């Protein structure tokens, strides 16, 4: 296996600029993975056009380079390839897998999709109606309802609170000109970062990357810049009211941290003690001892800025209030008393040794490098992960909890049947400042 990073051309005025290219070669299977990412995402959409970046990315394959939507889909499948689009607040990316023998033909197709989309009005109308149907259908998924309303209220007024897939009114307001503008904003050579992994060499990757972006305008990068989120003060409860729930989905959280924060690794280690393994405090108390929830987890994700720290459980409706009280107690203990030296030693071993599974394929390795590139992570964040974890000291971990995680500014989101659990759940949260009840079909 081998890895390389090929930088942008140093002579942008003489020759077309080249996108940043990352390559991880592995001949283990006749399969190539490809990501074409752009440093511009949904946070740059106009405020009344939630979902625009996602619609634009989905429109690429619905007619391009003289091919209809149906012809493109036939071609992708016939080549033994798969193609998907992913949109975050700061990045739009296309992911593809392709059987090695079809790579060349697939790149020709991808160059058309990325560089020559037609944005046919009829197709756009069809996609918007499809996306609206998907929004309604997603009301069936209680976990996704919980996450959506948790983010909506935690990041109120911030890009991270916006719904990436849009809302029904915002989708209904999108017209072709919006899509063309979004395309011109996002899909430029300057914004592009391309990653190849698998059965491919550096030289071949460079040639194919040039072909992919050949049809894109040669403009410098215009990345989406997201401001640091802040948290509304106080303790709030959001109940997403849905009929006939035998079970609840509960998220409790507050603002988290970012790799640019000096205490990010200490907090990540401490969060793993709380809810990152099968023997974590949350799992032991909620699942193993009480059997209240199939899973009990704590997470500390990040994006371009700090994201949310959260604890997730899904107990029966009858156990919801008690489960919230227990989680708040565990959060309090974690914050006030910290983690122990023994817990720290254990989790450091787990994180260091299990890192092997973050890098055991060429695609996983290149995705970590892509993450560093797109989110502008500190030098060596992923490459020196093991060193960072090993370096975490007990006091630093406990100080990070106290410094970053607020018990006063806290959001509790529960999906359940309000008439059945509302009062009990509210009583389980001391010092509650605000209760918001949202119908499950509000969006």
């Amino acid at each position: 296996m081998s890895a390389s990073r090929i930088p942008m051309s140093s002579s942008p005025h003489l020759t077309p600029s080249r996108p940043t290219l990352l390559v991880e070669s592995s001949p283990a299977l006749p399969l190539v993975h490809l990501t074409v990412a752009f440093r511009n995402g949904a946070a740059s959409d106009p405020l009344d056009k939630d979902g625009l970046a996602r619609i634009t990315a989905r429109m690429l394959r619905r007619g391009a380079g003289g091919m209809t939507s149906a012809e493109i889909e036939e071609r992708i499948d016939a080549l033994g390839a798969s193609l998907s689009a992913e949109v975050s607040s700061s990045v739009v990316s296309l992911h593809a897998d392709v059987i090695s023998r079809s790579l060349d033909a697939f790149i020709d197709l991808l160059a058309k999709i990325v560089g020559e989309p037609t944005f046919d009005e009829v197709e756009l109308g069809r996609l918007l109606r499809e996306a609206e149907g998907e929004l309604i259908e997603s009301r069936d998924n209680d976990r996704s309802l919980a996450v959506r309303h948790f983010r909506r209220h935690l990041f109120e007024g911030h890009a991270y609170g916006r719904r990436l897939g849009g809302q029904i009114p915002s989708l209904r307001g999108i017209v072709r000109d919006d899509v063309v503008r979004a395309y011109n904003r996002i899909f430029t050579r300057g914004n592009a970062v391309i990653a190849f992994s698998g059965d491919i060499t550096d030289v071949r990757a460079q040639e194919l990357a040039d072909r992919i972006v050949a049809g894109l305008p040669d403009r410098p990068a215009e990345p989406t810049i997201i401001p640091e989120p802040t948290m509304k003060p106080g303790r709030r409860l959001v109940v997403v009211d849905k009929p006939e729930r035998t079970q609840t989905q509960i998220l409790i959280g507050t603002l988290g941290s970012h790799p640019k924060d000096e205490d990010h690794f200490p907090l990540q280690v401490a969060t793993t003690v709380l809810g990152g393994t099968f023997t974590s405090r949350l799992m032991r108390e909620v699942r193993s001892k009480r059997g209240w929830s199939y899973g009990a987890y704590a997470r500390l994700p990040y994006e371009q800025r700090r994201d949310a720290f959260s604890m997730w459980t899904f107990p029966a409706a009858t156990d919801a209030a008690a489960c919230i009280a227990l989680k708040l107690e565990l959060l309090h203990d974690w914050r006030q008393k910290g983690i122990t030296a023994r817990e720290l030693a254990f989790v450091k071993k787990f994180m260091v040794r299990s890192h092997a599974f973050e890098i055991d394929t060429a695609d996983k390795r290149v995705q970590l490098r892509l993450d560093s590139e797109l989110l502008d992570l500190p030098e060596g964040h992923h490459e020196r992960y093991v060193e960072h974890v090993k370096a975490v000291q007990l006091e630093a971990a406990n100080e990070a909890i106290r410094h970053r995680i607020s018990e006063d500014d806290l959001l509790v989101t529960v999906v359940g049947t309000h008439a059945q659990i509302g009062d009990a759940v509210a009583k389980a949260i001391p010092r509650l400042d605000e209760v918001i009840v949202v119908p499950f079909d509000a969006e």
Partner: protein
Amino acid sequence: MLATPIPAPSARKAALSDAALAALNEGKPENARISLVRVHAFGPAMTIAEYRLGNGLTVLVSKDDSAPVVSYHTWFNVGSRHEKPGKTGLAHLFEHLMFNEVEGRPAGTFDRLLEEAGAETNAATWVDWTFYHENIPRDRIGLVVQLEAERMGKLVLRDPQVTSEKEVVANERRYRVDDDVEGAVNELLYKQAFTRHAYGWPTIGWMEDIQGFTTEDCAAFYKTFYSPNNATIVVVGDVKERELLAKIQAAYGHLEPATLPIEDVHPEPPQTEERRTTITKPTPTAKITLGYRGPAFGDADHVPLTMLAEILFSGRSSRAYRSLVQEKEIATEVRGWVSTFRDPGLFEMYATARPGRTPAELLAALEEEIERVVREPVSEEELAKVKAKVELSLLQSLETANGKAEQIGFYATVLGDPAGAFARLDAYRRTTVSDVLRAARRYLLPTQRTIIEVLPEAAMAAGTQA
């Protein structure tokens, strides 16, 4: 001792030599003696060495040094098909209990030791099988061998753990079935389609059965099914084969084989007329699921019927997606799948309606596509397309050591052929348009289907489409 076919010379190099095996077996009791059964070619570049211990334990080893990790799977030939009415869900509950106490190691130790070693661990249960897996850095493989052998032979079952785990499983059922429309509908489909065969009850079990299990039920299940001669170990990764086999001999060699019960599964009687049920659910849109009686996974017809399922349902270029989602705009999603069960299962189809659309509209559109594939052959281009798609799927599934181990374990357990994934790919490649047409006409019979229609409760229904 089992017969040992002599492998071809090139394949023989992929396993331990006779002399190395003899050295491993020297002074060992009969149950611990290990023999090479055969070496399987696993695609163009990989091999699987199949060994068996004297106590009947099968060990499949595929060396892969692409990363310094090992995936260790233990597949048991037991699933919900081995349960009885009134005791449904026992195989799955038992899978949970396997993470608890063993003699000399209190509850929680299993997970703690593995996590400390950096392992990922989990398990799954379905109708025909149960498997446990650990992915672990290569230098900790000895720990996995030791812990897996201990829980195969020395599990301790106590009331408090059984009570707590029953509650966890009840919550899992609420999550996957009771509060999940699709889960509930799928459960009902199999209940209606299978009146006699064990596939008619859900692997997670009926709620009243889950809540009624005793520690004695669990102990009896363990004694009956968790024996070395009912298990297959699959090891894929960066291992030294001789050291690995020595560890397996030492850890499992003392276990006695069990007398496995005669499998008491009733074949499903032929279905002679359509079965249809309409239910209401707290969901914003209508849904429909259809189950046509299908072949067993090992049946030759399973291959062309799977190709047909791909043509109809796989991806955005599939016929059903194009018709229902793109052209008619009556569905948000449409899927289809031929169940991969040891006994004949179902060709399942599932569609979710756009707001205001009905199950009748979904059914009419699906029937249009079904009647077309029964009436006229699919095109050579479509068949070539889905052949490329299944090849891609197989390659994607083989990227990690865990992915390879899962393919090997599944095919070994369900079909008795560890390398079956590639044999199946060859069978897909050989499939002709005539094969697909024959399968369509044999299986897509209206009299052999079960339909569940889901209507949204009035208060929940989203409005008609704008």
